[in-house]
């Protein structure tokens, strides 16, 4: 619906489009180093894409740029077909709040709050004041991640897998078009990792949420629609997985 005014929106609408994205750290200092050397990438609505690559290849850097947490030093970034370089901080924050959900390797939940309150956090950032709709949505999301019995527990009392599922529920609170997951299963045992992955996969199927999923786990990557390989800041392969 964000693209109603764009001709041809719908079938071939891309949630994310990168054109020659570059990112250098330490710009203007003697230690300036470019980490991303012109990344072209396009993700369609409903795609579940794995991002793989050796340590230090620039995966997290790319996710931060895509997530509007960091500005690229070159190239163009489109979210829902609209260009982002001209947006100011406030507009970026809004776009991020409405369109993008994050899950990181560590859950970064707020320890003093319950699971339900953590899930409501992005809605609170948007609305300011809690209301019944928010509470209902949080409960619904926690039901989807199978944490209904835990919804009023403090997150510090939960296991790593449970915490990461709360983080997934929180990332989906605003029903974002794009979910960015940076090694969300990296800290989890195999069973919990699979559990969290299946959760994202299920949301992706039901809500057509586009997912960009960084992982070192080949088994999980094989369950995605597509695997993008990145080495030294360049995409070296981009292939659909055989199903």
């Amino acid at each position, binding site marked *: 619906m964000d693209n109603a005014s764009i001709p041809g929106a719908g079938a071939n609408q891309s949630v994310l489009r990168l054109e020659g994205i570059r990112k250098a750290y330490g710009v203007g200092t003697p230690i300036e180093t470019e980490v991303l050397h012109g990344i072209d990438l396009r993700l369609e609505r409903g795609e579940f894409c794995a991002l793989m690559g050796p340590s230090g290849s620039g995966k*997290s850097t790319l996710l*931060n740029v895509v*997530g509007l*947490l*960091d500005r690229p030093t070159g190239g163009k970034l489109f979210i829902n077909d609209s260009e982002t370089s001209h947006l100011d*901080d*406030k507009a970026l*924050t*809004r776009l*991020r*709040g*409405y369109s993008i959900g*994050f899950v*990181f390797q*560590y859950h*970064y939940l*707020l320890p003093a709050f319950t699971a339900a309150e953590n899930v409501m*956090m*992005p809605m609170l*950032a*948007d609305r*300011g004041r809690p209301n019944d709709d928010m509470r209902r949505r949080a409960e619904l999301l926690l039901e989807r991640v199978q944490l209904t019995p835990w919804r009023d527990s403090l997150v510090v009392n939960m296991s790593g897998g449970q915490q990461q599922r709360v983080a997934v529920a*929180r990332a989906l609170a*605003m029903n974002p078009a794009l979910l960015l997951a940076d090694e969300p299963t990296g800290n989890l045992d195999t069973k919990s990792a699979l559990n969290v992955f299946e959760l994202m996969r299920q949301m992706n199927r039901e809500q057509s949420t586009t997912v960009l999923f960084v992982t070192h786990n080949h088994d999980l990557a094989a369950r995605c629609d597509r695997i993008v390989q990145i080495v030294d800041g360049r995409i070296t392969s981009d292939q659909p997985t055989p199903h």
Partner: protein
Amino acid sequence: MQTLFIVVGVSIGVGVIIFMSATLAGQQTNIIKRVLSSQPHITLLPPQEVARPLRAPPIAEAAIVQKPFQRVRSIDQWQKIAAEVGRMRSVTAVSPMASGPVLAVRGDATRAVTLLGMDPVAYYRIIALPEKLIKGRANLTADDIVIGMELASDLGVTVGDKLRVTVASGQAATLNIIGIVDLGNKGVNQRNTYAALHTAQALLGLTGGVSSIDLTVDDIYAAENVAQAISAATGVEADSWIRTNAQFYTAINAQIIANTVLRICVALAIAFGIAAVLIVSVVQKSKEIGILRAMGTSQGQVMRVFLLQGAVLGLAGSLFGSVLGAAAIHAWQTLVKNPDGTPLFPLVMDPHLFAYSAILAMLTGLAAAVAPAVRAARLDPVVAIRG
């Protein structure tokens, strides 16, 4: 944990301020009350021609020089002045007085004393003499006199005895002692004697005249201003209690300034404490702040959270501090006492003081939170999350 420490710190600071202020206010009211219980707020006297030679023509000056020194001077047109002053809005009571030096004689004993002649009804509204009675009564009629307790014991007289009063000019009268008062000061107890206005006027040769007019005003701290206004309007000399107790008044002012400086210092200490705690909390919570920013929380929202925290810390501290201060005041009043069991002096527990401290602590907390809040809002989410 740090929150607990800082709240305790703020509480102690606020408690100290409240206790200090109450002590100071209590001391002041107590002393002022003591001063003003035996002294009118303003006394009007005949103009001092000698001090202001330009005001009176030379002939009048000559006349004054020739006046017998023991003659008590009267205020010109005192009825008109008294009526005029009585109409002023800030003046609450007016009492004309005829006073002068007399000798009190009882058998062989003679004492030089001051005879204060006044209208009891008007005068007792200014100085509550009946409250100072230790014996007898104070409703003076023409032949009565009330004397101080030291004079009574010096002369060996008591209520019901007669006292002979003579003046240098030869006038004399024998008066009935109807009451003995304690005026709170040995010298005054030896010196002051009270009689009806007409009795004193006759003895002092002031028939129809008065030597001074005593006043009370509604705002004791404005007494000096009122006195100056009266002086300017009527030409009489008007002395306020503030002027006659200038030294004491300066001391009070010095105390008020010292207390203000103390308050500012405590407020600064509180502010730095709160700021330190919040800075630490910004550093500790930078990851959470980062993630909140990633989830669409604006810089303004992050800033508000920390400003609110500062205000809440200040407010919480001031609430506990108020309890602490009130407890200290209560303890003071029950533990520190005069030998007779009454409180040394009553502390003033002004509800305004508590409200004022709470608001001040809240604003202090808010101000202290500005730097940490700005810092939190400026946090780069990428740096914070990677940390």
